[in-house]
């Protein structure tokens, strides 16, 4: 299937924005403006953007720490994201939660995640369950990694989703590592998608660095879920191209593995496709990158000019009134 031109150019923008925002954050971290943990997105842009674009405006997603693209696609502004990274009062969690955690805003159909992976998958099952009970044609999407797949909740939530035939799509980002732990220490099977059979749901394997492949699989699963066909598990094969977080030099990853995956870079892939179809040239790319740079300059200026949260508010908001 050939994807429409507009979708591809849009996806290209979001993927480039994701990478640029990620790099901007890393730069701010180097300057000690962002402190604490910082998670790289490099290698995951096709997955998060494609999955995000496969959803409709009324759907709900629970992206995680490698899914910056999904937050952006759903309308979370880089201003609020950078302010969040900088711990400012204008950040998504108003300085309460760290880096990508807790970036929830239900008006954008976004659920903020907690560190405990894959907690959001359980919550998304509940969201999907609510859609089904209300008879609303909406879909809920969860994300988890190869590490998160080893947690009991991954099993409990997938089983739940299947038992109740919920409108749910699960994106498993298999990036070969969970912190320093390689896949082989996580499981004895090659494909996490094989587990779907055990839950009585379809399991799909896609090249996670190919935007078109992820988009097609995700759209089909979303459509199926919306039509009452139940949940799907989509395993996206990819590679985490940086350390687990910015402090980690990932000396444990073989260089050849990184070299192999570097040749499959998702952004290079979509740009090659766009050039092939006559939708992108050097000047077009330069203009796009410049536009993104300006947008991020503006977002960063806004974030840096934003106040820190008022310390006198530290005990406020624990309870809803």
């Amino acid at each position, binding site marked *: 299937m050939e994807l429409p031109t507009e979708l591809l150019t849009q996806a290209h923008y979001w993927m480039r924005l994701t990478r640029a925002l990620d790099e901007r954050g890393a730069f701010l971290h180097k300057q000690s403006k962002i402190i604490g943990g910082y998670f790289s997105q490099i290698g995951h842009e096709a997955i998060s953007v494609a999955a995000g674009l496969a959803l409709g405006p009324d759907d709900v997603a629970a992206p995680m720490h490698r899914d910056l693209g999904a937050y952006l696609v759903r309308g979370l502004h880089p201003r609020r994201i950078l302010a969040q990274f900088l711990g400012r009062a204008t950040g998504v969690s108003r300085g309460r939660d760290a880096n990508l955690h807790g970036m*929830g805003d239900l008006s954008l159909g976004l659920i903020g995640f907690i560190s405990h992976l894959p907690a959001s998958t359980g919550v998304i099952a509940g969201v999907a*369950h609510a859609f089904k009970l209300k008879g609303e044609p909406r879909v809920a999407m969860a994300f988890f990694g190869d590490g998160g797949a080893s947690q009991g909740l991954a099993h409990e*939530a997938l089983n*739940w989703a299947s038992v109740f035939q919920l409108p749910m799509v699960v994106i498993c980002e298999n990036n070969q590592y969970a912190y320093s732990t390689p896949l082989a220490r996580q499981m004895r099977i090659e494909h996490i998608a094989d587990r779907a059979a055990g839950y009585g749901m379809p399991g799909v394997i896609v090249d996670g660095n190919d935007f078109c492949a992820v988009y097609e699989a995700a759209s089909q699963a979303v459509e199926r879920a919306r039509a009452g066909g139940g949940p799907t598990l989509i395993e996206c094969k990819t590679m985490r191209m940086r350390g687990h977080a910015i402090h980690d030099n990932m000396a444990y990853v073989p260089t050849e593995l990184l070299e192999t995956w570097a040749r499959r870079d998702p952004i290079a892939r979509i740009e090659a496709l766009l050039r092939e179809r006559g939708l992108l040239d050097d000047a077009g790319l330069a203009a796009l990158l410049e536009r993104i740079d300006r947008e991020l300059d503006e977002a960063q200026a806004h974030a840096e000019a934003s106040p820190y949260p008022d310390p006198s508010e530290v005990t406020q908001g*624990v309870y809803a009134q």
Partner: protein
Amino acid sequence: MTWDANLHAGVTTLAETGNAPLEAARELTYLEAIREALRYELRRDPAVLLLGEDIGVYGGAFKVTQGLIEEFGEQRVIDTPMTELGMIYAAIGMSFQGFRPVVEMQFADFISTGFDAIVQFAATNHYRWGQPVPITIRAPGAGGLRAGPFHSQSNEAWFVHTPGLKVVAPATPADAWGLLVSAIRDPNPVIYYETKYLYRSLKGPVAGGEAGLTPIGVAALRREGEELSIITYGAMVHEAMAVAADLERAGHGIEVLDLRTLKPLDETAILATARKTGKVLIVHEANRTCGVGGEVAALIAERAFESLDGPITRVAAPDTPVPYSPPLEDAHRPDAAKIRAAAQQLLEY
């Protein structure tokens, strides 16, 4: 166990604060009061639904939800797979889409399997990104039923220590009803500790209706006295009342404060009774170390020290699992005799 009319005193006062007309009070067991509270809220609010293992056709392990699936259907009384973690996470997700789920733990003991969902997700969410989590988790807890280490736990302190949660523990049918309705309507996650021991052994008047709500965060003075305060909750309220009646015959005025809500504690009521009698005996079925009693004692020591005429004293279970064999469980569980001995000692101090 017999019904003590005094137990109702605090509730009657509370009923006067309601606006709606008082429905005819009914005599219900503690268990029936829970069921009727669920029915009341299921009828009133279409957003309310129940989740749990075996709660539908079977009516629940203790039959608390018996008859509800017949009245409300399987869309609102939902039998789930055996996953406390999945169930509580699902409840959180449902709450994000406007539902107010009430989740039944088959026994409070199994709540540990759902711990992450409660203490990590539900409890922190409003603070982190402002989205309330209006869920209620019913936890049938405590012992005295020869049910052994995994069906007798009083593990409420785990949650009392967690910011973002509310924890309630009714001792009477009226409060079983009134606190459950309040919990379901509360915009925060509430852990509702119901006492299995009282399910069928305790019967009492339940006002029902809007006037029968018990506010969260308000303790009830079950009995007034001048010499000593017993501060307690759950089944131990009844043991304390028996001791108070007994000591009254010996000429001692004993005050009994039923906490009803463990988080947030009713600091005003706790400090008032401590200042009034100057002698405080705290009683709970949960084991001693870092139990709710420790927090109550610290509060009194910090804020009512100058009124004290004796050491703040605790009667609690020892720090062991809850044993099965009757002589062992009896040795483990606080009761009127143990409370009386401690009260006597404190009176003589």
